[in-house]
């Protein structure tokens, strides 16, 4: 039976989340101490060796991000922890933040030390207000213990963190929209370059990382980059916190090495709920992929998923039993994107609603075979021309279902033409 490998979740459910003593009793803030005893380059080189890639969806190596910001000369730099977690069905950031906030703070402090920042923000999802006091209390306790704030551990390094509440929109999780939102502007993505690492919050170099990414840093510093790089698969090291949801027997959050097979994870969580038959999976959240059971033998790491036309994304695995109607699901997802598109760029603003329109028509028995060509073309155009990843990815459920569940579309069209 598949066992969890807990790096990010190592303290969750084991400690009182706000207690600095509990956290330190399990080695907490030792990594920061160790980092502060190293030069910034030495600390960075451990991160580089770990080859840790971002867990917020795009999979960008954090070491590279840190070195970019480190190299910029600026009077002020920022670290932002992206805790917007807007992906429906994804819970992992919430579990980490509410169960072990100090691991994230410590990770932020390490990142700040390397990048040369003195100030950090946790951008907390609007719908997670109950976590707010946990974070505030944990911060307060950490400051009192001298783990955060001015002159940390007598090293001369200052770093403090504020929690800010999110804008309540999915797109605010996109890093440039997030920054605009903290600045009090309309939460809309901006064209990159300039990248936040060079010109971000209030025009200053800013490192934006996901909760899970940051929570890995203390363990990497503590055990060495090489240790971390030996977990997972060569190009995608470490673990991933997966969220299992939908018609799965044992839903919830679990941490496995990168590259763990989807089939094994699925079985470890008891398979389909209520003994129903498996219809397929939706991977990577709303902008993820619909795959059928024949595709289940899939190592879950960023590159293998990508190569097989799937997405690891935030690590969400939604199980669909055979009572689900694929077209209903896809139609629903597109409603979500109509609602969440910020409306800035043409392909996403106008495209999502047209996809929805076509799928709705097919589903309602008004479809034509040519509609499938239009969907393919529109999806490609949205993917390659949208300004941000929302519009670039929102058509994945459509296009993957069209490939992996084509019969459902054909049947619906046929049904309409017969009627």
């Amino acid at each position, binding site marked *: 039976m598949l066992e969890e490998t807990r790096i990010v979740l190592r303290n969750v459910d084991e400690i009182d989340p706000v207690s600095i003593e509990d956290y330190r009793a399990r080695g907490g803030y030792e990594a920061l101490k160790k980092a502060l005893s190293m030069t910034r380059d030495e600390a960075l080189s451990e991160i580089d060796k770990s080859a840790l890639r971002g867990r917020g969806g795009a999979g960008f190596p954090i070491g590279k991000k840190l070195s970019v910001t480190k190299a910029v000369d600026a009077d002020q730099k920022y670290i932002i922890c992206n805790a917007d977690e807007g992906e429906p069905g994804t819970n992992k950031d919430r579990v980490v933040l509410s169960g072990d906030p100090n691991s994230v703070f410590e990770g932020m402090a390490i990142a700040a030390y390397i990048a040369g920042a003195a100030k950090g923000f946790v951008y907390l999802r609007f719908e997670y207000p109950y976590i707010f006091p946990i974070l505030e209390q944990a911060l307060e306790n950490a400051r009192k213990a001298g783990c955060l704030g001015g002159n940390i551990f007598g090293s001369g390094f200052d770093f403090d963190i504020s929690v800010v509440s999110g804008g309540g929109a999915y797109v605010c999780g996109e890093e440039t929209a997030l920054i605009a939102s903290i600045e009090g502007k309309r939460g809309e993505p901006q064209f990159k370059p300039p990248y936040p690492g060079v010109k971000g919050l209030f025009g200053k170099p800013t490192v934006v990382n996901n909760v899970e990414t940051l929570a890995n840093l203390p363990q990497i510093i503590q055990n060495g980059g090489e240790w971390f790089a030996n977990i997972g698969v060569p190009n995608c090291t470490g673990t991933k916190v997966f969220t299992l949801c939908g018609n799965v027997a044992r839903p919830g959050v679990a941490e496995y090495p990168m590259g763990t097979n989807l089939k094994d994870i699925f079985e470890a969580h008891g398979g389909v709920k209520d003994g129903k038959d498996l219809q397929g999976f939706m991977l990577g959240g709303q902008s993820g992929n619909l795959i059928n059971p024949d595709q289940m033998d899939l190592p879950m790491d960023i590159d293998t998923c990508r190569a097989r036309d799937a997405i690891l994304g935030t690590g969400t695995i939604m199980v669909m039993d055979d009572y689900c109607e694929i077209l209903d699901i896809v139609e629903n997802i597109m409603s979500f994107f109509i609602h969440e598109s910020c409306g800035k760029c043409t392909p996403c603003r106008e495209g999502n609603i047209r996809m929805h329109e076509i799928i709705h028509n097919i589903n309602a028995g008004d479809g034509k075979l040519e509609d499938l060509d239009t969907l393919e073309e529109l999806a490609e155009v949205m993917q390659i021309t949208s*300004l941000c990843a929302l519009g670039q990815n929102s058509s994945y459920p459509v296009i993957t279902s069209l490939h992996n569940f084509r019969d459902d579309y054909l049947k619906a069209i046929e049904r309409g033409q017969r009627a």
Partner: protein
Amino acid sequence: MISLTIDGLPVQVEEGASVLDAARKLNINIPTLCYHPDQDVKANCRICVVENEGQRTLLPACASPAAEGMAIHTNSPRVRKSRRHILELLLARHAQDCLHCKRSGTCELQQVSEDLHFVKTPRYPYRPRSAEMNDESSMSIVRNASKCIACGRCEYVCNEIQTVHAISKVNRGFDVNFVPAYDRPLGESVCINCGQCVQVCPTGALTIQDSCDQFWDALETDKLIVAQVAPSVRINLAEALGEEPGTVSTGRLVTAMKRMGFHLVFDTDFTADLTIMEEGTELLGRVKNGGVLPMVTSCSPGWIKFCETYYPDLLPNLSSCKSPQGMFGALIKNYYPAKIGKRPEDICSVSIMPCTAKKFEARRPELSTDEAPDVDFVITVQELARMIRSAGIDFKSLAETPFDNPFGLGSGAGEIFGATGGVMEAALRTVYELVTGETLKDINFEAVRGFEGIKEAAIQVGDLPVRVAVAHGLGNARKLMDAVRSGKADYHFIEVMACPGGCIGGGGNSIKNWKLMESRLEAVYGEDERLPIRKSHENPAVNSLYEEFLGEPGGHKSHELLHTVYTDRSYLLR
């Protein structure tokens, strides 16, 4: 220098240039819609996408910095497919009634559609942007939401350049819209009618409120139709009719208007000179008697409404002079009828203006006589150009006709009212000579010329060092007024023009950008140099009007006809 290739052709550009710049250097046309040469890059329409070899996603050419070794393709199958599909998505929301659209022929969307050879019906059903399609509430601007492509150019100019905040983006996703706050109609909003949004809108979503029919209708009456023509109209009209920017067409425009059926065509340069006499006198009076300083010019109606809305506490700083249009209207309805033996109601008074805000100004109750407006309607340069075309007149081949008397003579000082700094320069020429009794050695006040946002100068006039400032574009005016409000500005006299560049950049002209504005500016000062009289106080027609009718500048009659009052409009902000 950065080297790259575009469609296989090598090109070198400066660091910081965009892929679009590089393509233009090679004369490769990349369509654009949200891109505007005078604005920050927005990269939201995506029509300018190009392919960079080895990259999965396409790049917006306008926003992507050219980088060493790039291999760009502007015409690959993926690019063609994408651009046409994006256009198709836009058109599926667009009224597409080009045949009766004011922008037909100058519309950028139409041009892009033509350039992409888009000759089919969109696959998607038509879904207009907003149920409330046409906002005709404003006297100056018409907003048609069904033609909006959500490019954001209007929002940029209204908020970033003008700082008026009349138009902003509301809603998200498919429902995005660009509207005044609280869903107010434009005519009831803080909009100051400058028409800068019309100038930047790529489509017919924002257009000038059209008054042409009022003229054609007037022709069917027995009224004497008299027109006044603002200084910058002669600078801009030929351009609006397709000639080179900066082509001055004073005589031809009078000929054209006569052919259309105007009975008399007068020159607003005349009342510009009159304004200088009144305003100069007012300024000297304020200085001498300890009146409110700095005094601020009042000829730009966009600026006036802005001041009434955002700086009601500074209304006492505004000169009480009516604008040249307002002064002209007052003379036409109060002085001229008796002179020619007619009643005011027998006269139809029309002004030809570079300005959309003049349409609003003409409806101010202060600018009326016995409840009848002094100016019956206002025709902008864009409209006049259209009327000339619709009258079948070949403007280019027209002979020249002089303006009619008694309001046909204007000085160079009146003419430069058309450019930012012009009112100030005209005032300085006159104030200096009237106060000192000396002749200016050099009447060109270079310090107040040009497109610098805020210009300052100090001029010794007798024993008084006169400190002046000039702002154009309301964002710049706001900076000056904030300084005045906080007591940090010790100027005597400030000129404000609502529109960037002054009236030659007014919202009623043909579509502009800063490059075109350079030619217009040159033409203004060329005219000034060319005119035999270059100082307002040397205009004999103005002087005889004082002798015959008005009496003294700033005298009783002047106050009754040529001066006005202002209204606190800060309630619009609530």
